[in-house]
């Protein structure tokens, strides 16, 4: 019988090794899998490559992994915010590498990773500093960049409700990067408010089908919420 539920976040992240590539969902604090991040801070894996849209928007996101010296490389679109100081310090002393990617290219590269497409062309960032060094090609008389897929060893995502098979629904704009990151990792771990029996979620409203979710962690009700979006 399929059982993806883990007892807690610590057990769900226990096997993550040094050097792993990690996709972290959320947009600022909304839809951020902060309990999984906290468990990984506790677990301590180092030299991580982290792919996440926002770095520094909140203290309990990727900023926590940076503070704890677990990150070697970051791929993101928006590396600024009130909790970006430690990132800036590490960029300056060379202990972290940063790749800034336009948000749509970031989403599409992850989607490509999940969909078996190694590379695609986009006009986004052509003729800009972020396009420098990339292979280019004209389509329809417009310069395009060749962009490569992103995949992760693990994805940390946040959902609202899951069933035992791993089907997921989200709450409002909590979706953001979570459904796409779920498709692009070898092991996708979802923290959710609630886990229900199969058949309890209407098949028409499932956003992330079961095939994309490998581990589930149910939040304890008292720890469920983040009160603030930004700090």
């Amino acid at each position, binding site marked *: 019988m399929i059982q993806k539920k883990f007892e807690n976040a610590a057990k769900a992240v226990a096997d993550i090794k040094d050097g792993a590539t990690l996709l972290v969902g959320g*947009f*600022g604090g909304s839809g951020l899998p902060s309990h999984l991040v906290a468990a990984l801070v506790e677990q301590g894996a180092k030299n991580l490559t982290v792919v996440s849209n926002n770095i520094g928007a909140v203290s309990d996101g990727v900023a926590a992994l940076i503070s704890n010296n677990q990150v070697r490389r970051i791929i993101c679109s928006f590396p600024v915010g009130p909790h970006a100081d430690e990132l800036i310090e590490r*960029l300056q002393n060379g202990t972290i590498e940063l790749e800034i990617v336009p*948000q749509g290219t970031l989403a599409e590269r992850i989607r490509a990773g999940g969909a078996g497409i190694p590379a695609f062309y986009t006009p986004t960032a052509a003729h800009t500093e972020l396009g420098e060094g990339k292979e280019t090609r004209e389509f329809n008389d417009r310069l395009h960049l060749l962009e490569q897929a992103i995949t992760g060893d693990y994805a940390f995502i946040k959902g609202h409700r899951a069933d035992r098979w791993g089907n997921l629904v989200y709450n*409002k704009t909590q*979706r953001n990067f979570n459904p796409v990151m779920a498709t692009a990792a070898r092991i996708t771990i979802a923290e959710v408010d609630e886990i229900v029996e199969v058949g309890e979620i209407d098949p028409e409203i499932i956003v992330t089908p079961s095939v994309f979710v490998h581990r589930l962690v149910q939040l304890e009700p008292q720890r469920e919420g983040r009160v*603030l979006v930004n700090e």
Partner: protein
Amino acid sequence: MSKDQQKVGWSKIELATRVAQDLEDGWFVNLGIGIPTLVADVIPEGREIILHSENGLLGLGPKPEPGEEDMDLVNAGKEPITLKPGGSFFSQSDSFAMIRGGHLDAAVLGAFQVSMYGDLASWKLPNTTLGRVGGAMDLTVGSKRIFLCMQHTSKGTPKIVEECTYPLTAPRCVDRIYTDLAVIDVTDDGLVVQELAPGVTFEYLQERTAAPLKNHANSILQEETLHIND
């Protein structure tokens, strides 16, 4: 300000109102962070403009009442918002497929600099380590129209220039510039002033602009001359 000084230019809310006038019924529009956000509050009565937020929603509504904020319902600036009836949620990848696929009628964006050719610089200041590109490069290549909405100068320094000196967001992408002083179109024939804000003269505007401006009437004249020369 002494009593005899005439008011010069538009206030932020007047500027947003001027932008909103040009958004047509039924358009799908993305509003950038900053002054563009104000446009949401001044949509003309009777028009249905469907606002897009790149974190995954269509049908963005006004700010919630105090105490009604929901951390799972935020805009691209990560501020709590509401959803209008008819709105929808989707993922970031679907949201940017929408943007990059050319499905938005317009994006109203802020700017650090814009050139007379419509080049936009809006994501990174020079000599800084970190840019904050977010969705700006995707919006500029993907939206059917790019409207800028900004102060005409930055503390007196012109933001409209011959060539951008700041890192580009995208070249040749801006269609129209709305500032506190004027409405200016970016055309194949250069920057054409369509409208002056109250108390602003063409000369006053040109002094605060580091690229040559044409006014609409002259432009039409010149176009006719060009046609004669054809």
